[in-house]
C-alpha cells in the first residue's frame, strides 16, 4: 500500500509531508509530557521488531499465496498511540531509505496513510471502544480485527485520493476505489486475525506487558474521542484547503511557473477534452474540477479526445528524442569516464 514518489505531484507530497511532520511534532510533544524513560528505547526496538516481522512471510489461508503484516495496530495496542505513531513513522522512513518502498517524497503520504489511521482513529475510536478494559479476550480479538480492517480501508482510500489529486495516473476514481478497497478488505481481515492472535498470545504469556500499556501509560487514557475528532477535523480542513488552493491556482504544483517560462501549459486540454455533457457531472462529482477526474462513465467515444490533444507538436518530440538520447549517452559516458579514471 506504499504510495510512490512517481505518482505524486509536489503539492500533494508537500501537503502530506507537512501534515505528517506536524503529527510527529505533536506526538513528540505529547509523549514528552509524561514520558517514562523506558519509552524511547522501547519505541525504537519495537519499530525494529515490526520491521523484522514484516519480513517473515506466511501462507494466506485459502489462497496459497504468501503475505506479510503491517503491524501498526499491534504497536498501537502495546505502546499507545503517540509512541506507536512515531515508531511506525520511523519504520516507514527506514523502508523508504533502505528498500525504496515508496520513496522519500511519498513518505509523508505513507506516514499519514499507515500511521494516522491506526493510531489516532482506529485505536481510540474503535479498538478502545470494543475492547473496553482489556479483560475480555473475545472482545479484544474482535476489537483488533475490526480496527485493523477500518484502519486499512481508510489508508487505502487515502492512497486513492492522493493518487488522483496528484493527477499522474489516469485511473478513474471509481475504478481505483473498486480496485483498492476490496483488496485491502482481504488484507485487513488477514492482518486483523493475526493482530488478534498476537495480542492474545502476549496476553496469555506475559499479561503484564499489556497491562502496563493499559494502565501505566496514561497516553491511552489521555486521548479523548473529542480531541481526536477535533484534531481530525482541523487537519482535514487544513489539508483540503491547502490542496484545493494548490490545485486551483497551480494546475500541477510548480507547473504554473513552467507555463510562464516555457509557454507550454499542458493541462487545459484535459478539461476541454471531456464532452460538455460529462462536464456537468464531473463538476458535481469531482471536488477539484480543475483536475478533471475522469469519470468512470465511458459512453463517450474515445476519439473525441484525440484531437483535443495538441500538447506536443511533431517537431518538438523528435527533438526531444534526439536530445534525450544524446543526454543519456553523455551521462553514461561521464559515469564510465570517472570509473576508468579512478582505476
Amino acid at each position, binding site marked *: 500500500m506504499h504510495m510512490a514518489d512517481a505518482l505524486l505531484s509536489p503539492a500533494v507530497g508537500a501537503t502530506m509531508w507537512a501534515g505528517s511532520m506536524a503529527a510527529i511534532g505533536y506526538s513528540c510533544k505529547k509523549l514528552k509530557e509524561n514520558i517514562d524513560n523506558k519509552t524511547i528505547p522501547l519505541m525504537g526496538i519495537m519499530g525494529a521488531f515490526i520491521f523484522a516481522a514484516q519480513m517473515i512471510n506466511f501462507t494466506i489461508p485459502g489462497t496459497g499465496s504468501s503475505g506479510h503484516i503491517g503491524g501498526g495496530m499491534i504497536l498501537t495496542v502495546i505502546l499507545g498511540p503517540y509512541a506507536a505513531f512515531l515508531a511506525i513513522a520511523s519504520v516507514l522512513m527506514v523502508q523508504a531509505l533502505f528498500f525504496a518502498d515508496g520513496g522519500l517524497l511519498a513518505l509523508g503520504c505513507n506516514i499519514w496513510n499507515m500511521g494516522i489511521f491506526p493510531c489516532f482513529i482506529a485505536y481510540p475510536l474503535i479498538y478502545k471502544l470494543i475492547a473496553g478494559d482489556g479483560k475480555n479476550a473475545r472482545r479484544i480479538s474482535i476489537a483488533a480485527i475490526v480496527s485493523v480492517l477500518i484502519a486499512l480501508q481508510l489508508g487505502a482510500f487515502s492512497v486513492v485520493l492522493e493518487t488522483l489529486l496528484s493527477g499522474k495516473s489516469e485511473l478513474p476514481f471509481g475504478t481505483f476505489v473498486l480496485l483498492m478497497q476490496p483488496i485491502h478488505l482481504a488484507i485487513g481481515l488477514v492482518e486483523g486475525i493475526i493482530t488478534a492472535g498476537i495480542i492474545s498470545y502476549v496476553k496469555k504469556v506475559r499479561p503484564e506487558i499489556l497491562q502496563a500499556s493499559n494502565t501505566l501509560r496514561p497516553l491511552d487514557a489521555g486521548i479523548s474521542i473529542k480531541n481526536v475528532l477535533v484534531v481530525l477535523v482541523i487537519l482535514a480542513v487544513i489539508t483540503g484547503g491547502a490542496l484545493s488552493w494548490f490545485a486551483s491556482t497551480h494546475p500541477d504544483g510548480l507547473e504554473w511557473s513552467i507555463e510562464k517560462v516555457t509557454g507550454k501549459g499542458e493541462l487545459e486540454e484535459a478539461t476541454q477534452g471531456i464532452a460538455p455533457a460529462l462536464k456537468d457531472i464531473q463538476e458535481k462529482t469531482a471536488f477539484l474540477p480543475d483536475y478533471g477526474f475522469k469519470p468512470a462513465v465511458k459512453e463517450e467515444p474515445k476519439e473525441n479526445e484525440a484531437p483535443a490533444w495538441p500538447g506536443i507538436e511533431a517537431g518538438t518530440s523528435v527533438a526531444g528524442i534526439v536530445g534525450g538520447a544524446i*543526454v543519456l549517452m553523455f551521462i553514461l559516458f561521464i559515469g564510465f569516464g570517472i570509473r576508468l579514471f579512478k582505476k
Partner: protein
Amino acid sequence: MTFDEKYYNIGFLDQLAYKNTFVHRLDPRAKLIVTLLFLFTVVSFSKYEIAALLPFFLYPMLLMTIGEIPFMFIFKKVVFVSPFAVFIGIFNPLLDSGQVFIFSGLTISAGWLSFFSILIKFTLTVSTALLLVATTSFPGVCHALRQLGVPSLFVSQLLFLYRYIFVLMEETMCIVRARNMRSYGERGKDIRIFVRIVGILFIRTVERAERIYYAMLSRGFQGDMPSLKRFHIKTGDIVFALSVAVFLYFFRFYPATQILGRFVQGVFS
C-alpha cells in the same frame, strides 16, 4: 525475496554507507536537502514530460560513480520495488488514448507518454533515495534531521530502530530458518505458526528492550539522549549544494534537451 536475501540486501546497502569517498564525506544535511530538492524538482514535471527529465540522471550517476556504489545493485533494487508504480501507471495507456505525433507516420498514445514519464520519475526518485543512505549512512541522515529541527525524541528512537534492526533481523532469520527447515515445503508456513513466531519474537523483543534499558541506566541515562556535535558545514558542502541547486534550476526551467536535439537535427539536415 527470501528473508535471508532481504537481510543481506539491507546489510549490503548499510555497508556501502561506511565507505570513505568525497560523496560520503559531504555533510549529511547538505545531502539530505539536496536530495529533497531533487525529488521535488523531478516530480514537478508534467505528467507527459519525458525528454526534459533525462538530464536529471546525471545526479544519481555522479553520486554512484564518485561514491563507488555498484550500479547493478541500485538498479536491481529499483526494479524490485517497481511493481506498485507500474501497476498504477499501466492504466494510463489504457485509459488515456489521446494520440501524439512523434514524427510523420509514428504516433503513440498520450497514455504511453505519461506511463513512461512515471517510470522515469520512479527510477530517478527511487535511486536518489537509495543513494542518499548509501552515501550518508542512516545515522548520518538522522543527525541531519536532528540538526534541521526534527524533535530529538523522534531522532533518538530512530537511531535505536536502526541499531536494532540488524540484531532483530538476525534473530528473526534464525527462527525463520528453523521453521523452514522442519516445514518440508509449504506445510509449516501457515498463519497460526506465523502468529506464534511473531508472538515469541515480540516477547523476546520486549525483554531485550528491558535489558537495553538496564544497560543505558548503568551508564547514567536519565531521559535525554546525549548527542555529539559532529558535523560542521564546510565550503565543500556549500559548493556542492549550490551547484546541484543551479543544475536543478537550469534543467527544470530550460528545455535543454529539446534545444540540444534541435541543434543536432539542424546540423544533420
